[in-house]
């Protein structure tokens, strides 16, 4: 507890300095704008912001990225409510009741609910993150190589099994990511692999370059393919915000609390994240409601549940990143790169070596989530102006930033060409429904998985059973297999049920 107080004091001291505090504002603004505009999510904002973190110190960089993350998750609700078009995948559920409220002339109330619930969910999960990180980090310190490998294996299996419609597509994407991560010099023996005679490939393939290509450039290509078929949408009526009354808030208190707990827990699971959190919370709110039939017609619970949960997932997702150095999703994977650029490896050791950084992240996320209220109320009207910008102009701007992001890493055009190739690969992946998250996590966690796998075998005389016989790693491997088997079991069960019905 004393450690936590000291760390928080350090964090408060740093955050109150204007040259640090300003990055929370900038991050929130960019996150909300990017989150609000359909087709460019908060995740894309985080990816495109990475080159801007090069001249910053690690605390400024993390404040910028975490605030963008929080703002991006909230921002998606604006276009969901006003346009019936989710700005980000995590805001899909908000459209179910948010847009019907707009049609009823209750847009201001829906936006007010989204702002309040996002802030509450995000704030509470940031508090949970603050309290839970230190004990988990101390547990993580006792992990040996087999446990780390099992943990990474579990994370990869979870993200693969739940990230797409097809398990095979998810596994293929994961294998592509893992293979790309193995290009370069092998971690234990230092032997060059798959350089194909290109000296540049010996340094490996940078996952940030791949992410910029697959997420940002690939998305632009996909959108251009369908651009002519898209209809421009107009915001109906005057836009404003209207707070929940005390009576309304009290009526929603259990929905908000339940969604916060669900969101934080699901956010903590590797690969699950804000999108699944919002769907699960919406489903729970509907199933536990006295009148489930009213959901979808424009009720406050239908906005409160997903908005609380998706923002609560942000704090949950930061826990495995900070305590174990393992990202649970795309946004936290990008944050790992910010650590690496500064020569830091996120994980339990950072709690001892950089307590001021940990404190700043804790305090920064708490403040960022509180600032969502101010930002939301003041700026919803301004943000709606960004929704009117034609996609072609946004795409031009994003391509410029894609180039700059890829080029600025090492000042070489080679990275830009690699990014273009992955942009085309990303287009095909999106078109044929290969989930991108397993590819990215495969690239981020591949080197760690290989290193821990081989060092475990070296330490335990090539005994493969070590991963199954140690209690923690054995349990994690079991859980991983359960997650991998889950889609197959469900498929067989559904087939049998439909066969029985016919």
């Amino acid at each position, binding site marked *: 507890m004393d450690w936590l107080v000291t760390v928080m004091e350090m964090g408060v001291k740093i955050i109150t300095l204007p040259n640090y505090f300003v990055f929370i504002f900038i991050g929130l603004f960019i996150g909300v704008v990017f989150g609000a505009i359909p087709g460019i999510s908060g995740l894309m904002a985080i990816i495109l912001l990475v*080159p*801007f973190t*090069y*001249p910053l110190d690690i605390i400024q960089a993390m404040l910028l990225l975490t605030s963008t993350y929080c703002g991006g998750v909230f921002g998606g609700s604006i276009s969901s409510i006003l346009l019936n078009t989710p700005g980000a995948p995590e805001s899909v559920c908000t459209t179910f009741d948010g847009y019907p409220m707009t049609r009823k002339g209750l847009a201001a109330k829906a936006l007010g609910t989204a702002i309040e619930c996002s802030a509450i969910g995000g704030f509470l999960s940031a508090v949970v993150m603050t309290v839970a990180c230190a004990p988990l980090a101390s547990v993580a310190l006792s992990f040996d190589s087999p446990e780390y490998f099992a943990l990474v294996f579990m994370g990869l299996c979870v993200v693969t099994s739940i990230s797409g419609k097809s398990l*095979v*597509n998810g*596994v*293929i994407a994961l*294998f*592509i990511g*893992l*293979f790309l991560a*193995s290009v370069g010099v*092998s971690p*234990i*023996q230092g*032997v*060059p*692999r*798959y350089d194909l005679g290109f000296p540049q490939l010996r340094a490996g393939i940078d996952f940030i370059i791949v992410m910029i290509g697959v997420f940002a*450039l690939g998305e*632009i*290509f996909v959108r*251009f*393919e*369908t*651009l*002519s*078929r898209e209809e421009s949408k107009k915001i109906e009526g005057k836009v404003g915000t209207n707070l929940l009354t005390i009576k309304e808030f009290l009526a929603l208190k259990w929905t908000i609390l339940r969604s916060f707990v669900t969101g934080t827990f699901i956010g903590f699971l590797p690969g699950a994240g804000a999108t699944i959190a919002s769907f699960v919370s919406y489903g729970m709110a509907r199933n536990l409601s006295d009148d489930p039939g009213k959901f979808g017609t424009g009720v406050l619970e239908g906005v409160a549940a997903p908005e609380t949960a998706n923002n609560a997932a942000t704090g949950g997702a930061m826990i495995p990143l900070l305590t174990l150095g393992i990202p649970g999703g795309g946004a936290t994977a990008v944050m790992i790169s910010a650590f690496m650029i500064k020569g830091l490896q996120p994980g339990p050791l950072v709690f001892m070596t950089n307590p001021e950084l940990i404190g700043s992240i804790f305090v920064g996320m708490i403040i960022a989530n509180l600032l969502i209220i101010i930002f939301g109320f003041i700026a919803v009207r301004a943000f709606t102006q960004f929704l009117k910008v*034609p*996609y*072609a*102009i946004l*795409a*031009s*701007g994003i*391509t*410029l*930033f894609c*180039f*700059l992001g890829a*080029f*600025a890493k090492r*000042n070489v*055009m080679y990275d*830009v*060409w690699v990014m*273009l190739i992955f*942009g*085309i690969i990303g*287009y*095909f992946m999106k*078109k*044929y429904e290969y989930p991108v998250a397993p590819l990215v996590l495969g690239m981020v966690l591949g080197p760690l998985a*290989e290193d821990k*796998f*081989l060092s475990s*075998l*070296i330490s335990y005389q*090539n005994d493969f059973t070590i991963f199954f016989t140690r209690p923690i790693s054995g349990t994690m491997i079991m859980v991983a297999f359960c997650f991998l088997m889950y889609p197959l079991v469900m498929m067989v069960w559904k087939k049998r049920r439909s066969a029985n019905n016919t």
Partner: protein
Amino acid sequence: MREKHPRKGGKIDGDFFFCLALIIAACFLLSISSTTIKVDENSLGPFFWPKVILVGMLICGAMKLFFHLRKRKSISEDNHVNVPTNYKALIFAVVLTFGYFLGIVLVGYPIASLIFVIALSYLGGIRSIKLLASVSVGLTLITSILFVGVMYISLPRGVWIFYDITNWFFSLIKF
């Protein structure tokens, strides 16, 4: 608009070729998965991990192809639903992006960006000359100021006369 085309034998789509390319790539990479550098005989070797991944990729790719062919057979009797796609805009967008990156090397970042923003926005349906001009100038100026003026990143300056033009432009915006 969705059109229905009755087809015989289903459709071999891009996904089929994607899987085929994956299998060929995995086979090729497996064939070069060895090293002449001597490594410790007791350890698994530097190619063990990627080989496991490549074998996994091969199996999954083969499974996907198998499912694809089976599905193809099953839909051969049904009416195939075809979703029209604007490939022209897509190909133009890819070619423009390729040309932009090539142009950056030849004419430098500012000039290439000015032209690219106008071209891509036009392709995306923007026809207002004022808007095209203001957006391209605005975006090029903002990104140049941010990256060259504030972050001191040396962006490509092009060759021949373009090098001097870009140099002059960057000297104006450097703080």
